[in-house]
């Protein structure tokens, strides 16, 4: 009898510790969608950069097209993630805008914005080969930093993406390939993992 109460106490302690320090409503599905967008974006990037039916007259036009594709992918991914996470939080009764989600966002955005500004500076100096590695490394760092405040799997996503970023700096010129691997394949992989680990379990409850 008593041992049951102690067991309840322990699970209550664990529950409160994780709910108060981690934002657990992050949707795995949004990771999968972000990966799909990234792969579509990488394919468009391939069509723009390599010989295809798509012809561009100037160097600037290519540059603009690439930036438009990248921005489109990023905006779609963020909107989808926000929507799906909002839905999941609502279903599990977690507040979407509480201390844990604010802390998660701040810790994710600080490295990410640093990376964003850094990449803009690289574009200004026309260091094209370093753009793919920089986006991957800074995104990986952002995930690694944010992982302390959300599901553990984000940590491994971050580490994988950082390694891919370093590899892409070594194999310069294959930026698009590593970009597709890091933002596309990795997101789909870890998103699927998280989806089956957390999302499907929730709906069974």
């Amino acid at each position, binding site marked *: 009898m008593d041992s049951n109460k*102690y067991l309840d*106490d*322990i699970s209550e302690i*664990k529950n*409160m510790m994780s709910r*108060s320090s981690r934002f657990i409503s992050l949707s795995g599905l949004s990771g999968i969608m972000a990966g799909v967008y990234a792969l579509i974006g990488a394919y468009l990037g391939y069509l723009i950069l390599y010989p295809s039916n798509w012809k561009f007259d100037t160097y600037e036009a290519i540059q603009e097209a690439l930036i438009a594709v990248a921005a489109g992918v990023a905006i779609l991914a963020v909107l989808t993630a926000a929507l799906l996470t909002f839905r999941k939080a609502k279903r599990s009764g977690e507040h979407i805008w509480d201390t844990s989600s604010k802390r998660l966002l701040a810790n994710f955005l600080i490295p990410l914005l640093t990376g964003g500004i850094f990449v803009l500076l690289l574009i200004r100096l026309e260091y094209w080969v370093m753009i793919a590695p920089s986006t991957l490394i800074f995104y990986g760092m952002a995930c690694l930093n944010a992982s302390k405040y959300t599901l553990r799997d984000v940590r491994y996503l971050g580490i994988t993406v950082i390694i891919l970023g370093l590899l892409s700096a070594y194999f310069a010129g294959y930026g698009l390939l590593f970009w597709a691997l890091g933002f596309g394949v990795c997101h789909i992989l870890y998103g699927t993992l998280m989806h089956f680990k957390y999302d499907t379990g929730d709906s069974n409850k």
Partner: protein
Amino acid sequence: MSIINNINKAFDHRIRLGIMSILMVNDYADFNMLKELLGATDGNLASHTKALEKEEYILVEKQFIGRKPNTRYSASKLGKQAFKKHIDALEKLIGK
């Protein structure tokens, strides 16, 4: 016998257990955050924080954010030690 002695009466309530769990992993938490997480009423939560404060397990800091009063709580060194002992005792009791 000694294990039973380590079960701390001060933590023998869901709300107080929750408050301490939250303060173990967060540097501090304000009244509203505790209220939301624990699903307690103002009066209920206030009486439990008072009890923990009296044991000197938590520290209370009253301040103003703009014109709104804000009370934030953190676990004291004593409170953290006591809570760790309590968890160890619980685990040992279950392990048997």
